[in-house]
């Protein structure tokens, strides 16, 4: 059957390229595998050529898929489910990308695109490592390709295809009007597309520029963790156990910089557009991306230890492998829907849990198989892996699947321990490597604790229990990490002053004495004048915060000093110090902004209007502002001035004016909210903030009047008045100034014999404000039309009802809460948040400087 108005070509091309990418990545994986295994040079070269050709084909296909899907979204081809589900006609062009990666399919594609780019760089620079490393990357590409394939293999659906048509997706199956004879059992009408006028639109909370730029960076970070992993596996596979370290190091640094920036860009998005009240909420999705980064940092330090001293090679293996394994585990957590109960922003279950589990399974056991000692062991490992897969598939206890993964990891660790050489001699306690290793361990264990707590839903499903997060989960995270911060800050400050292998005490103290002294003074000053009184968790915690603040000051100062004391100001060499300096700032920024965060909108009871009910004694964090009525909030007088609507959307902007009582500071914030968006009752708010050098003022709408509930039921109270007469109302009085009859009215509008009267009133409120009200009454074309006037902040409406021949009037007066226009908002002050953002940027720059230096070193070593 042909349907009218469909554009089928892009979808057909898309399907073609998906199949092509599947085949190409399969061929690339196989050929690279053969190129690695082959002992004969000409054979290896042949396979490598084929593999490169396939990988480039794969790259072209992935880019084509990406381009076609973008074309579909951008041209509003709503016959495709992806476009219909994630975009709409009114969506601004800049958000087209955001809706591209809103869905699972789009974000998998993003991941895949980055793998392609990284793969091309590896082909160019990999030399002898190209074949084994690219085997891993191509295999990852194969796995991701199946995620968007949407094909059936033995009744098992593989992946979710982004090019599926709306009419094939099942969405329209229950819409009788779109079917022939209004019968859902019959075919769709040929012109069904004429009823699909607009898409579902991008979730309003994602309509934010951070959502356009942070996923690509974050996914580049995720994608790049495969490179250190692939190098480590390649080392085990080719039995060149230590040679991989040097080429892998710049990649590890790159990955850490990009992933770190990506995570914090996500934090910035949460800060700027979500109403969590901050940049970090220990949400499972945030944790899941932090954990691989922490392990990666441990990886970098152990790799560095190895390159300088020969120690900790085994740990370098483990951390490089585990950081990628935890990327895969995070993928499972956030995309399987298992976090449904605990996270506010995981993806929904697309029925791909088996596939997501397999992703983890294949990479762990794949690494176990290729790292086996000889062919015999390889075959044995393979048989065990296959047997476990069958067991996990057919034994209906999730714990079996979990054990299968853990066993795989155990085998990998066993192979590392068994085969990778190590130094028996103990590190000296005065050596740099010893303390670097301690730092790495702390990072790793912090990662394990975070992922352990985050995995509670997984534990529930494995053990078939139902445990819920404890009341104080957040403070648990904070209590642990305040100590992690203290130790890491001190290690960051001190360790660079130690030399590799052995440090003499004199040398150490001679260099370190000066920065330590300065830091003690500076740290004491910051703590003393910093006014840090975070008392939610008791005095011990506050003490820990003070200590941590002082220690991070130490990290900042000691690392800046080291650039001169240790490296004589050579910036090229000081990547490490710069990134540690940045990291010190990150810690300091986190500590200061979190512990000194203030809620400005603290409020006792309701607004100071007497509604006859006793005000509640409890303080709350939200404040209601009546339009036009200034309220005290911290040092500000805050007024809700006006609001305006988005021209195309059900989105309102609220103009909130802040005026300081103590100085001349004055500004307006424009928080906005989607109200009853797309027929969904309720609202979704977006914050607005004012940035200062030392702090941010941050506000968002937390409640709005409900128009239905506030139906105006009060009646007008009519009085007869003459000019000069006074009327009292509950909160003041008003005086009728005079009664004016307007003349020379346009006959076109008023018709013959029309009239218009105005009755200006001067109103004196008990609060001291004076207003003018001008109700009007028109007689037009034989009909009376009243135009009442309102003072919203007083809840007062007056209506001119009649003008008598003796120039007295009948005035209707009404007092009603329903005329009040108000917003409820929450406002915060975030001090020193810029320290955090600056710290992130400096850390990333420092890491990238190190990366460049390592690349140069590798090059000159080869020459």
């Amino acid at each position: 059957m042909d349907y009218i108005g469909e554009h089928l070509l892009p979808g057909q091309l898309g399907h073609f390229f998906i199949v092509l990418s599947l085949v190409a990545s399969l061929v690339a994986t196989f050929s690279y595998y053969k190129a690695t295994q082959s002992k004969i040079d000409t054979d290896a070269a042949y396979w490598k050529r084929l593999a490169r050709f396939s990988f480039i084909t794969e790259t072209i296909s992935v880019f084509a898929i990406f381009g076609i899907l973008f074309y579909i979204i951008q041209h509003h081809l709503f016959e495709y489910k992806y476009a219909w589900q994630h975009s709409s006609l009114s969506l601004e062009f800049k958000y087209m990308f955001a809706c591209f990666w809103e869905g699972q399919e789009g974000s998998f594609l993003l991941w895949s695109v980055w793998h392609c780019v990284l793969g091309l760089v590896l082909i160019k620079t990999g030399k002898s490592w190209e074949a084994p490393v690219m085997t891993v990357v191509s295999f990852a590409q194969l796995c991701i390709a199946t995620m968007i394939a949407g094909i059936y293999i033995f009744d098992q659906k593989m992946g979710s295809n982004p090019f599926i048509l709306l009419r094939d997706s099942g969405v329209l199956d229950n819409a009788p009007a779109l079917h022939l004879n209004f019968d859902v059992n019959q075919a769709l009408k040929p012109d069904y597309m004429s009823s699909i006028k607009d898409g579902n639109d991008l979730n309003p909370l994602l309509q934010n520029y951070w959502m356009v730029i942070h996923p690509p960076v974050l996914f580049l970070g995720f994608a790049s963790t495969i490179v250190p992993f692939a190098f480590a596996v390649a080392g085990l596979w080719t039995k060149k156990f230590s040679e991989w370290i040097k080429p892998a190091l710049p990649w590890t640094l790159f990955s850490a910089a990009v992933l770190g920036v990506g995570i914090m860009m996500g934090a910035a998005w949460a800060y700027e557009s979500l109403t969590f009240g901050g940049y970090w909420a220990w949400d499972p999705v945030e944790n899941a991306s932090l954990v691989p980064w922490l392990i990666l940092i441990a990886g970098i330090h152990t790799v560095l230890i190895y390159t300088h001293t020969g120690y900790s090679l085994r740990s370098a293996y483990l951390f490089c492998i585990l950081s990628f394994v935890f990327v895969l585990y995070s993928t499972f957590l956030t995309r399987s829907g298992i976090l449904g109960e605990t996270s506010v922003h995981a993806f929904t279950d697309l029925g791909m849990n088996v596939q997501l589990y397999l992703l983890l399974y294949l990479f762990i056991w794949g690494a176990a198989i290729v790292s086996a000692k000889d062919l015999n062991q390889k075959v044995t490992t393979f048989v065990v892996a296959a047997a476990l897969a069958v067991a996990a598939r057919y034994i209906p206890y999730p714990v079996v699947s979990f054990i299968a993964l853990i066993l795989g990891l155990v085998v990998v660790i066993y192979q590392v321990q068994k085969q990778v050489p190590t130094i028996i001699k103990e590190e000296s306690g005065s050596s740099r490597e010893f303390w670097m290793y301690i730092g790495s361990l702390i990072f790793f264990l912090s990662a394990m604790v975070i992922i352990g707590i985050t995995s509670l839903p997984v534990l529930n499903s494995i053990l078939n229990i139902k445990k819920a997060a404890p009341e104080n989960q957040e403070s648990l995270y904070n209590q642990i990490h305040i100590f992690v911060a203290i130790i890491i800050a001190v290690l960051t400050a001190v360790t660079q002053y130690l030399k590799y292998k052995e440090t003499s005490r004199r040398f150490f103290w001679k260099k370190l004495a000066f920065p330590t002294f300065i830091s003690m003074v500076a740290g004491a000053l910051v703590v003393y004048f910093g006014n840090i009184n975070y008392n939610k968790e008791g005095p011990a915690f506050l003490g820990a915060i003070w200590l941590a603040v002082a220690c991070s000051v130490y990290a900042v100062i000691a690392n800046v000093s080291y650039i001169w004391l240790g490296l004589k100001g050579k910036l090229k060499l000081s990547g490490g110090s710069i990134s540690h300096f940045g990291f010190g700032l990150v810690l300091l920024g986190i500590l200061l902004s979190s512990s000194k965060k203030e809620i400005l909108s603290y409020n006792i009871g309701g607004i100071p209007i007497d509604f006859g009910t006793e005000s509640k004694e409890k303080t709350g964090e939200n404040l209601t502002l009546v339009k036009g009525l200034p309220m005290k909030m911290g040092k500000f007088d805050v007024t809700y001035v006006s609001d305006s609507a988005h021209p195309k959307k059900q989105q309102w902007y609220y103009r909130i004016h802040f005026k300081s009582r103590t100085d001349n500071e004055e500004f307006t914030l424009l928080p906005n909210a989607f109200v009853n968006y797309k027929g969904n009752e309720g609202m979704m708010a977006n914050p607005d903030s004012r940035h200062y050098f030392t702090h941010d003022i941050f506000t968002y709408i937390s409640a709005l009047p409900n128009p239905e509930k506030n139906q105006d039921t009060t009646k007008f109270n009519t009085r007869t008045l003459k000019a000069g007469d006074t009327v009292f109302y509950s909160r003041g009085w008003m005086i009728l100034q005079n009664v004016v009859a307007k003349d020379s009215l346009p006959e076109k509008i008023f018709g013959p014999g029309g009239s218009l009267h105005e009755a200006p009133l001067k109103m004196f409120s008990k609060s001291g404000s004076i207003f003018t009200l001008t109700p009007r009454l028109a007689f037009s074309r034989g009909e009376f039309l009243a135009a009442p006037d309102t003072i919203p902040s007083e809840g007062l409406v007056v209506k001119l009802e009649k003008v008598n021949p003796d120039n007295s009037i009948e005035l209707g007066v009404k007092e009603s809460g329903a005329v009040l226009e108000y917003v409820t908002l929450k406002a915060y002050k975030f001090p020193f948040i810029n320290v955090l953002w600056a710290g992130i940027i400096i850390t990333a720059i420092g890491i990238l400087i190190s990366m460049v230096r390592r690349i140069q070193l590798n090059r000159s070593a080869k020459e």
Partner: protein
Amino acid sequence: MKKIHIVLLVFIAGAIAVLISFLQTTATYDTVQTAKDKPGKFVHLMARWDKSQPMEYDALKDPNYLSFIATDTLGQSVKVIYRNPKPENFEISEKLVLKGKYTTDGYFECKSIQTKCPSKYKDDMSAAQKKVQGASETYPTNTETK
């Protein structure tokens, strides 16, 4: 034994201790009845907002006071007080996870509400379907022509 091994063991023991203590502090998912059975204990109450009962929230009186009746799947109800504005998506959520305690004063003092709805961050199939059907409501839906 190397120094580093000792440190390693101490750290790992610390991490395990933290995780075990975490497991011991975990709360439980409860129904109205089981939450009432342990007043003063922090629980996750799984329930729905009972829309047939009035909800009390007036931002003018007090923006930090929301009170409503929650009903669980077993049909039992409890009064909930939440000292915050109405959470986003409260109206459209199908299920609420109410984190808090049942008090001896006979109501559920809620510390945080997690709304479970099909739309937030999630692919909204059912609401979208409704929309397609809604768009076509102008057509007669029960005519039969043979």
